[in-house]
């Protein structure tokens, strides 16, 4: 893929949201783990779709419907190629990562039996915990949790001991949204496969930072959300290996997912439409395709290096602050710096940073079990994207110092 040399200022120029002021201060957006800002090209694609191409897909004989259908299917192919999937059959449009995981829990989950085990880790987002708990309640399966170290790294020895022929699924986050830890997923996937387990990767925090090749990873499922990867909200992807998706029953029933319906029985459409009941989020899918094309125009290796540099730079400075504790010190981490400050509540820090124009996340980040593990109520989390800069980190650090002064005085 041809792309121009990586330039933060060129990239920033494409994001209108980054140009605004809040409370009279230049906005510094460090809440990319929650959602990313959108480049102009994605906004234009959405506007263009609604203005000129809007029609329902897959069933219209008329011109607009055919235009919308080809745009929707072209988006699917763009995404398929970007993550290295074999074909468009393997790319299911969903509402987001949470929806994708629930689809797998309900559909793949149908085959599980009492006593079967599902492995997750101690650093999972609630979205990769609760659907499995619900499945365990329905099917009598057992949810087991791979422990982590204080540094925020998976205990690989414990993981290997937990694997057995009872393990049917490993559902693991690729990058932790709270700690930034990049898990050695390729190694874990290979080991899980040795006992016959399938593997689902929660890619909500990895698609925007790493180049993803699902074939190289050899994961069985990969999930992500459009809005965290510079695309619209309400759209996401479930990648699944075709042979596996083929054997899975539909998740929801409705239009588009059927082949023939009678009152006696219905037969289902082929992949991927079998899993896309009802009118999908057409604009969202096309917008996500546009966001992925935007990524293809960027040197992602250079972008990842830039993000890693930002992470190390911020963490290096914060580490020197007295009373500040970095939460998540994995050797292999990126784009997230989570911390607590002695005697100061994350909510207070977040509120004062906000008033200085800096958007960070505070709280438990939908990882309450992880907060329990560290015995903290929450953290302040700065999370970066490739459009952030060291200068922004300097401003953030000064604002943090001022906040600490006010709170501590």
């Amino acid at each position, binding site marked *: 893929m041809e792309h121009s040399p990586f330039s933060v200022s060129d990239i920033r120029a494409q994001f209108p949201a980054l140009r605004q002021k809040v*409370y009279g201060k230049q906005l510094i957006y460090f809440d990319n783990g929650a959602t990313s800002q959108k480049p102009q090209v994605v906004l234009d694609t959405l506007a263009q779709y609604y203005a000129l191409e809007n029609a329902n897909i897959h069933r219209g004989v008329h011109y607009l419907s055919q235009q919308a259908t080809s745009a929707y299917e072209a988006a699917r192919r763009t995404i398929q190629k970007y993550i290295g999937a074999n074909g468009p059959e393997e790319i299911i449009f969903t509402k987001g990562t949470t929806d994708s995981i629930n689809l797998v829990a309900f559909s793949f989950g149908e085959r599980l039996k009492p006593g079967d085990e599902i492995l997750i880790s101690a650093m999972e987002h609630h979205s990769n915990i609760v659907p499995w708990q619900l499945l365990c309640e329905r099917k009598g399966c057992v949810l087991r949790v791979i422990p982590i170290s204080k540094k925020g790294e998976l205990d690989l020895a414990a993981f290997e001991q937990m694997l057995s022929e009872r393990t049917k699924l490993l559902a693991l986050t690729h990058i932790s949204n709270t700690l930034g830890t990049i898990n050695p997923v390729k190694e874990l996937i290979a080991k899980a496969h040795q006992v016959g387990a399938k593997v689902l990767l929660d890619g909500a925090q990895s698609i925007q930072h790493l180049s993803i090749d699902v074939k190289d990873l050899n994961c069985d499922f990969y999930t992500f959300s459009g809005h965290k990867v510079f695309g619209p909200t309400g759209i996401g992807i479930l990648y699944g290996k075709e042979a596996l998706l083929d054997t899975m029953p539909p998740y929801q029933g409705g239009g588009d997912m059927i082949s023939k319906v009678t009152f006696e029985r219905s037969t289902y459409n082929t992949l991927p439409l079998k899993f896309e009941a009802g009118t999908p989020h057409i604009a969202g899918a096309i917008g996500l395709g546009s966001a992925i094309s935007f990524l293809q125009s960027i040197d992602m290796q250079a972008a990842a290096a830039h993000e890693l540099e930002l992470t190390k730079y911020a963490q290096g400075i914060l580490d020197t602050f007295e009373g500040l504790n970095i939460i998540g010190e994995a050797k292999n981490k990126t784009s997230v710096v989570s911390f607590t400050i002695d005697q*100061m*509540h*994350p*909510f*207070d820090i*977040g*509120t*004062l940073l906000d*008033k*200085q124009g800096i958007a960070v996340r*505070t*709280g*438990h980040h939908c990882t309450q079990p992880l907060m329990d593990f560290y015995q903290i*109520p*929450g953290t302040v989390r700065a999370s970066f994207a490739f459009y952030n800069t060291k200068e922004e980190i300097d401003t953030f650090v000064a604002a943090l110092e*001022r906040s600490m002064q*006010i*709170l501590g005085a």
Partner: protein
Amino acid sequence: MTIQEKQQEIIDEFAIYDDWMDKYEYIIELGKSVPTLAPELKTQDRIIEGCQSNVWLATEIKDGKMQFSADSDAIITKGIIGLLIQVLNNESPETVLKSDLFFIAQIGLAEHLSPTRANGLLSMVKRMKTEALQSLAQ
């Protein structure tokens, strides 16, 4: 002083701050000066869990007037609690129940009492009013 006058007093006090940080510095100082709730009063039935910060509320009625004391693990939340208590304490249950806390929006803190803020303050005001209603029903 009526409940309206008490609110106006706070609005006037805040009028001198045109910088957000100064305003918050004032709230934080206030939060530090609000007496902490005794540990034995921080019971499960007094906690109002927010997504971000927790609030504890203890209520008493003395000579027909409501007496609130409250605490929070976040100092900004506690400062705003201090303002609410300043306005609502020593008022009759009826006045508390009917009170329109317009000062919060006027001093620019409406976001802290919005349902999305999830810091426990909105629920605390609701709890204050519920307790006023309960005492009227007795």
